[in-house]
């Protein structure tokens, strides 16, 4: 039941201290407990943030196995630096920051590995043609596949800001904190990423370009 007091303040009966309510297992609480050695608290952090972190990494690297491996690495690094972590209220920003570093390292390592491949290597010779077989083409045009493929065409910076904004719903301020980009750069990258994605995805959505 809601009532308006003489002071014009709205109160909700049955929910005392509604304004001051804090969630049990809040981020600060979990971090503090994990620091003190509560393993269960760290498991809860993993449960709460594991899905967004793995999704973000997957969007960055585009490979399931690698995304799982890098998520593991992200949380191990987070555990290692629990003591150095200061702003408990922004745990997700902190985790995304670590995940970004881990994903970027993996992408660079993969780039280096790829550049080492020689022309006569068996792997290169066995690579399939870039054009998929006709029967696969139609199947591959499912919307998720379209978005996934379109994401892969973005360069690393654009993919990073696009993923954080559009899929992870981070604010510009948080994205700037995670990536270290200036506000102007991230706005430009995000705008260009949206245009590129629109160009590739809109034919399937009936959205005018």
């Amino acid at each position: 039941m809601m009532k308006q007091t003489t002071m014009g303040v709205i109160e909700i009966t049955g929910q005392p201290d509604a304004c001051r309510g804090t969630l049990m297992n809040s981020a600060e609480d979990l971090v503090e407990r994990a620091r003190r050695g509560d393993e269960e608290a760290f498991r809860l952090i993993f449960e709460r943030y594991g899905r967004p972190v793995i999704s973000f990494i997957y969007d960055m690297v585009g490979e399931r196995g690698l995304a799982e491996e890098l998520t593991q690495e992200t949380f191990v690094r987070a555990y290692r630096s629990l003591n150095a972590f200061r702003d408990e209220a922004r745990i997700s920003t902190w985790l995304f920051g670590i995940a970004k570093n881990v994903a970027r390292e993996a992408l660079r390592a993969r780039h280096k590995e790829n550049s080492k491949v020689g022309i006569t290597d068996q792997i290169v010779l066995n690579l399939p043609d870039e054009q998929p077989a006709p029967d696969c083409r139609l199947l591959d045009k499912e919307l998720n596949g379209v978005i996934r493929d379109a994401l892969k065409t973005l360069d690393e910076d654009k993919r990073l800001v696009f993923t954080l904004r559009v899929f992870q719903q981070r604010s510009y301020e948080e994205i700037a904190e995670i990536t270290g980009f200036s506000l102007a750069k991230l706005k430009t990258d995000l705008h260009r990423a949206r245009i590129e994605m629109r160009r590739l995805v809109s034919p399937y959505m009936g959205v005018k370009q």
Partner: protein
Amino acid sequence: MKCEECLALLEEYTDGELDVRTARLLTTHISACMACERAWKELRCEQEMYAGYQREVDVSPALWAAVQGRIEDERAVGSGQWAVGSGQKAAFGFSLARLREWLSGGTNALGIRHAIVAALAFVVIGTIAGMMRYVDWQGREPSREVVTQNESQKNTQTAVDPDKLVAAQGPKEQVAEKKNRENTERQADSRQSVNEGKRSNTLLAARDKRIKRVNPKPLAPSADRVSDELITKADQEYKAAFSTIADAYRREREQLPGPATETARHVERAELLLRSFRNADLSSTAFDLAYEQQHSKKLLYKNISLRRDAAAKGDAPTEELLGSLEPILLDIANLPNDPSPEDVRAVVERMQRKEMVAALQVHSMQTSRMNY
């Protein structure tokens, strides 16, 4: 506001990143300008489509087990953070923890610490340089061996001239030796030409395959070209069909009445309000938040009614979400007429602690995923 200005700010508006005043100007313009409204709707539609994007990854128990396993290993090494063992291992762990704490700022001896850190950096750089030189040397070693071998062969040949050697032998032996030498040279030549032939064949094959891969379409007109045309045609038809179906779904969803849509719209409005409130300029001394307060009051009434509906239907996640949203809406509605920066900051911090905006977005994403 002009259309150009509005369109330039549309993405930030959709992202809820504009300050309260500019967002209000845009809202007014969009409600009066059909072209800008259409552009805004298209952007929203895109957002919804991205919200429906599903990945083939999930957090499995095995993943936590792997993380836990690695943390256990870390603990075994002994960070001294969670469980400190006994004996030498514990002492080692303790010292590592102390060192880490010390390096991260646990001591006040800044000058000394910087000096030691610089010395450590020199040692690390020196070690890396040494390792790189060693690796470089290792990489050159086989070729140097080959050169040495060739040179030694050459030296042997120059030191003992075979012709002179032959001259020192008898006539029969001279003929036999010459034949042997010719045979050996011929065999070596033929082996070399076979090897070169093989290598060039491999390279040619590789080049052919590469050409095929780079240029998958055959140059000559053939059945493949016809099939390519068919594929392109089918592709276009598929896109058109996909687009029609997506359009139909979207229109249907827009017209769909019912509590689920009502909650979704409410959550969307609340999200926009909270985003706009979060972006209030905290360095400012005077806030004009009358609109937000009024809007928050309206949303609060709606929130209570929707929360009760969700409770009656046993929709626990929605009930929980709206239950968390209520105190925030209440806080905004109850702000004084001229709120101080501290008042506003307190509400913003509460929103951030609860990660309210993110929770509302997750709900919107899930709703649109169900609708797709």
